[in-house]
């Protein structure tokens, strides 16, 4: 039976089926865009070489260096020999297989999920994959964007397709208007706290409702980026005028009649009015506070105005045990006001929040204010182009005058594969996406926050909202 009313995800899916799976076999889907970085690709290229296979579509493939790259002294050879080896392997593989690469020092180098949209390669209605779970970011354009493992990277390189099992669909309805100081980061942290880190498992999430429509593309990318933190395979937002305005004129965006054809197709992608989702979640934007995490998974979050929760407040025994363990690791006492938590470091960056809009929002708060003593603030733009754009606007000066470090582009302290790490026991307010044990350095403690909360926290030294600055 063919459904007549379809969701956005189902439409994109159906239009990419190369071979329909029978008897429980997955559908074979065509992949329109494959993004590569140095960490999850070397073993895939090795696999190709061993099997004597070529890259089927180098023209649908692009590579950049981000996870391992240093954010200082980028004109010098990479100090860490293992990081250097991995980056050299990517350069070698790109050359051997004829793939365009944006290396350190290139204007288009940067975090892979910042680079794709910035170039206009990420478009509505396409399928995007990358050996990185935060590929979900690209769903903000109405693309079906999936994080994949290295075996799948090899599969896409060799065939430009992936065998995929159909997903269930979940609508995340966010209605209302966000209050001042509340951002899309707070929406997604609240969603994850509500449905849990496994709540989206098996689903493609579609973010809908007036609050989502009001968001910029950057803000939508922040939300879709963290879909994976709710366990979802992907997150999507239907394309609209905001999407088209962002895309138009970018290097790889279609032009002339191609643009008109594309828009006609993109306009047809929105979920049909009679379509049914397998699950629905509702969130009221009007009453949402800035959201922050207290624990060691992204689902362990509360309003910034709240307190560190008591483990006994969780009915699920696994959640209760996880809370006990998290409080111990985070060195927090239940009942402590979130706003009383002191931090050592503030990190503004990562594929979640390192776009020009994020930097502008933080700079607007920091401007003319003084950094809290003993707090270190690291600002890492998402791409070389974002860095240049920020410098053109004078944002770098605001950050430097404030006392923050102004770095070169990369994943940096989000996962600490380069030297940007927290020391054991250090506590950070971080605009990144994961607060796992040891994520930002061995023994490091992470609170996930929005760029606005990051900025206010750097000023006060304790987890803070911009509104707290006005009270003083």
């Amino acid at each position: 039976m063919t459904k007549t009313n379809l969701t956005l995800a189902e439409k994109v899916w159906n239009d990419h089926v190369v071979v329909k799976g029978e008897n429980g076999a997955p559908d074979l889907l065509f992949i329109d865009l494959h993004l590569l970085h140095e960490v999850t690709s070397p073993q895939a290229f090795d696999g190709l070489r061993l099997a004597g296979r070529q890259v089927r579509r180098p023209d649908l493939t692009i590579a950049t260096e981000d996870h391992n790259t240093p954010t200082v002294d980028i004109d010098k050879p990479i100090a860490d020999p293992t990081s250097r080896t991995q980056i050299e392997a990517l350069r070698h593989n790109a050359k051997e297989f004829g793939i365009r690469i944006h290396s350190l020092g290139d204007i288009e180098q940067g975090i892979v999920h910042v680079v794709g949209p910035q170039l206009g390669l990420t478009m509505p209605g396409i399928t995007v994959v990358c050996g990185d779970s935060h590929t979900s970011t690209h769903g903000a354009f109405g693309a079906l964007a999936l994080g994949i493992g290295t075996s799948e990277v090899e599969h896409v390189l060799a065939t430009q397709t992936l065998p995929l099992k159909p997903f269930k669909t979940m609508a995340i309805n966010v209605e209302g208007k966000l209050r001042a100081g509340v951002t899309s980061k707070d929406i997604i942290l609240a969603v994850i706290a509500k449905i849990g880190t496994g709540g989206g498992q098996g689903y493609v999430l579609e973010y809908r409702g007036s609050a989502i429509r009001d968001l910029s593309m950057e803000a939508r990318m922040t939300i879709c980026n963290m879909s994976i933190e709710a366990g979802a395979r992907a997150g999507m937002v239907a394309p609209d005028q905001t999407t088209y305005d962002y895309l138009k004129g970018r290097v790889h965006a279609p032009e002339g009649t191609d643009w008109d054809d594309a828009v006609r197709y993109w306009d047809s992608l929105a979920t049909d009015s009679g379509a049914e989702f397998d699950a629905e979640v509702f969130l009221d934007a009007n009453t949402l506070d800035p959201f922050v995490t207290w624990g060691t998974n992204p689902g362990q979050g509360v309003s910034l105005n709240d307190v560190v929760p008591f483990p006994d407040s969780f009915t699920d025994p696994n959640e209760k045990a996880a809370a006990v363990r998290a409080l111990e690791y985070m060195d927090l006492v239940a009942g402590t006001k979130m706003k009383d938590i002191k931090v050592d470091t503030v990190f503004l960056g990562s594929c979640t929040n390192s776009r020009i809009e994020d930097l502008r929002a933080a700079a607007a708060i920091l401007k003319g204010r003084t950094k809290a003593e003993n707090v270190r603030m690291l600002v890492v733009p998402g791409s070389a182009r974002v860095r240049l754009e920020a410098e053109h606007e004078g944002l770098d000066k605001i950050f430097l005058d404030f006392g923050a470090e102004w770095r070169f582009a990369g994943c940096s302290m989000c996962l600490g594969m380069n030297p940007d790490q927290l020391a054991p026991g250090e506590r950070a307010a971080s605009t990144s996406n994961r607060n796992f044990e040891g994520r930002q350095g061995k023994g490091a403690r992470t609170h996930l926050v929005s760029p606005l909360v990051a900025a206010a926290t750097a000023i006060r030294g304790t987890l803070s909202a911009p509104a707290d600055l006005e009270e003083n």
Partner: protein
Amino acid sequence: MEKFTTFTGIAVPLKRSNVDTDQIIPAVYLKRITKTGFEDALFASWRNDPEFVLNDPAYKHGSVLVAGPDFGTGSSREHAVWALRDYGFKAVLSSKFADIFKGNSGKQGLIAGEITDEDTEKLWDAILSNPGVEITIDLVHRTATLGDLTVEFSIDEYTRWRLLEGLDDIGLTLRDESSITDFESRRPNWMPKTLPALGAK
């Protein structure tokens, strides 16, 4: 890939939920460009704790992990599966797996079998009352047997078939190459295209 039918080995109780892939293998170990030799990296941070289950001599040579819900969440790193495999694990049982981890497991011949929360508790109790006890994973019948206790696990039918046959995904897909070529010829012109590699002819 080797065919998988049944396997018997020491069961390891990992009584934690939300075991994310940063715990299974911390990022510092992802710099290697090989696909093997990750055994030292498995649970590297937790293994510093003398109380960690794999530091117990009874479980040191474990090969079937019985873990809490939401196993393998977070990063897509297939290195997590390679580290488990290189250490000697052939199967992980949990009531809930993250999607990408489950997919990666299937590609590498590691069984990710879903069991109920109730059966997880039963298995934990049985293992803890007899540390070092062996468990048999039977992929043909989708069962895990430990002494008198047999629990059923689920794994999607296609993955199970591939593992039983030891089939390689890319080889399977290339059987449909003419369909891929046909699909490519129908793609609209506005679709994205990257620039040629610098220096390419």
